[in-house]
């Protein structure tokens, strides 16, 4: 299963956000989108999902232009995890996750026992089975984000597009979600996610695309792409990219010069 964009211009009617993006998303791969706020990550994702029409160029799913595909067929292949938000009505968590089954349920139908089982498995997989009878509007923002991911898993997609899935999570849940992403890729699912944290790219990204002012500047393996120079260009801040002693993981350390005042300002002993 391959989702690809060819010379894609994207944005809203009368307001172009980005242009000239060509990208391939392949099964079993984790592709990260990294870029500053307003760089066009969310808009690009919505265009890849067919939620926004391409202003120019095409989005192809195994060679077929998604413009010609029905939403239901597309939703069985491509799942979407939007940024966590408040629902308008106090649905139970299980009801929310069941909505992920929509593409598998006939137009006039309702979820079956089998659909419920899939939804509960998705909750269990993310370690939030205990939330199933809770009210979606009354759980924490991090829990809501996990519920959104569970809903996308209940969709049983082959390709999963996630908009900042770790943004509102605490440290532990961030790592849990990154672990899930890696596990999904091992199971053969293609995962695209956007993030503001280059460390997350090092932790589980196979490739990373740098998105800046609506243009894709670079794409490739994280080690080759995420450098002090590229981060400086992207974010305008000084960062060191450090290899950990295990020679496997890298991490980004902001240059602390002028940030932390060692010893200064502390009361004298």
């Amino acid at each position, binding site marked *: 299963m391959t989702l690809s964009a060819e010379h894609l211009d994207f944005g809203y009617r009368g307001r172009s956000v980005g242009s000239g993006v060509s990208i391939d998303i392949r099964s079993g791969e984790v592709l990260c989108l990294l870029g500053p706020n307003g760089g066009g990550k969310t808009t690009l994702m919505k265009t890849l999902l*067919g939620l926004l029409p391409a202003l120019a160029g095409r989005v192809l799913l195994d060679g077929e232009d998604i413009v010609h595909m029905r939403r239901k067929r597309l939703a069985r292949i491509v799942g979407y995890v939007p940024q966590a938000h408040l629902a308008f009505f106090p649905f139970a968590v299980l009801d929310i996750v069941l909505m992920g089954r929509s593409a598998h349920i006939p137009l006039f139908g309702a979820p079956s026992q089998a659909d419920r089982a899939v939804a509960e498995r998705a909750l269990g997989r993310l370690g939030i089975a205990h939330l199933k009878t809770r009210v979606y509007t009354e759980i924490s923002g991090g829990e809501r984000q996990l519920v959104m991911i569970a809903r996308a898993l209940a969709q049983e997609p082959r390709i999963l597009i996630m908009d900042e899935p770790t943004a509102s999570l605490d440290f532990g849940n961030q790592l849990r979600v990154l672990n899930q992403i890696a596990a999904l890729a091992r199971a053969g699912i293609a995962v695209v996610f956007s993030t503001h944290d280059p460390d997350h790219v090092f932790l589980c990204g196979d490739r990373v695309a740098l998105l800046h002012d609506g243009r894709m500047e670079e794409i490739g393996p994280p080690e080759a792409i995420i450098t002090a120079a590229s981060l400086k260009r992207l974010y305008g801040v000084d960062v060191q990219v450090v290899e950990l002693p295990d020679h496997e993981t890298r991490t980004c350390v902001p240059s602390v010069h002028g940030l932390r005042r060692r010893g200064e300002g502390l009361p004298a002993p």
Partner: protein
Amino acid sequence: MLALALPLLALLLLFLGSLALGKFPVSPHDLLAVLWSKLTGAPSGVSAAVETVVWQIRLPRIAAAVLVGAALAAAGSTYQGLFRNPLVSPDILGVAAGAGLGAVVGIFFSLSAVGVQALAFLGGIGAVLAVYLTGAAMRGRDPILVLVLAGVAMGTLLGAAISLVKVLADPYNQLPAITFWLLGSLTAITLPDLRAVLPAVLIGLVPLYLLRWRMNLMTLGDEEARALGVETRMLRILFIAAATLMTSAAVSVSGIIGWIGLIIPHAARLIAGPEFSRLLPAAMLLGAGYLLAVDTLARTMAEIEVPIGILTAFIGAPFFLWLLATARRGWQ
């Protein structure tokens, strides 16, 4: 199940109570005798006047209250979910204003009751059609926001037209009828009226029932619902058409009865939750029971009939404020 059993029981009690209460009280014994004779065919042994009051006068009116209340509550639940806004009522897209203008014009030209009803029905549907087409012409923006704002503008425009007709109307013969119609009343309803609007209400109910689970997805918003595989445009048209049909049919016989479509869905959500396949029947039962109670009050509390719109507002507005103040923030 309890969420449906209690409203059903309440509706049943209200039904019996409303048959018995009124200017011509019917004792419980007589009422049971009349009902029993209808079921078994045995002679009831009560006076013909009692039979007439129960079957010819009260029953059509009770049936109308149940039908109109259920229709307005179902339409309100649909619109609130569709527009993701708890402050939405069935007249959000101008149904009430359109139906109002149709009826007022009908009264102005001294049409028959059937003519007034037909114009009200067509006015309601025409207003929503105009709003929908206006919204569809402004593509590329949030379709829901455009619809709501176009609906507000259309409602104001039609309201001005209603005012104009009121100014031109004969203040002695026509104006009272117009005012009474705009405040809602079930006084003049006959069985043939009901037979005329029942099909429209039922036709509107069919898509709501068939698509009751899909409706939940519409509350997620256009983009998310589409990402989950829903053809939102088609469903939105269907839901709007169904709710508009029900509202127009109801309003054409009852006049404008406010507040039911706004507060009943909230009350139903409190007892049955927001999941639409459970919400819809609960809202319809509550709407039917509420309007029946209010109408019974309207015809028994004073020497003259009190317009229903006044009572629903007097009861509905404080209830809404109470909800706002005390209910867990269910809609956020």
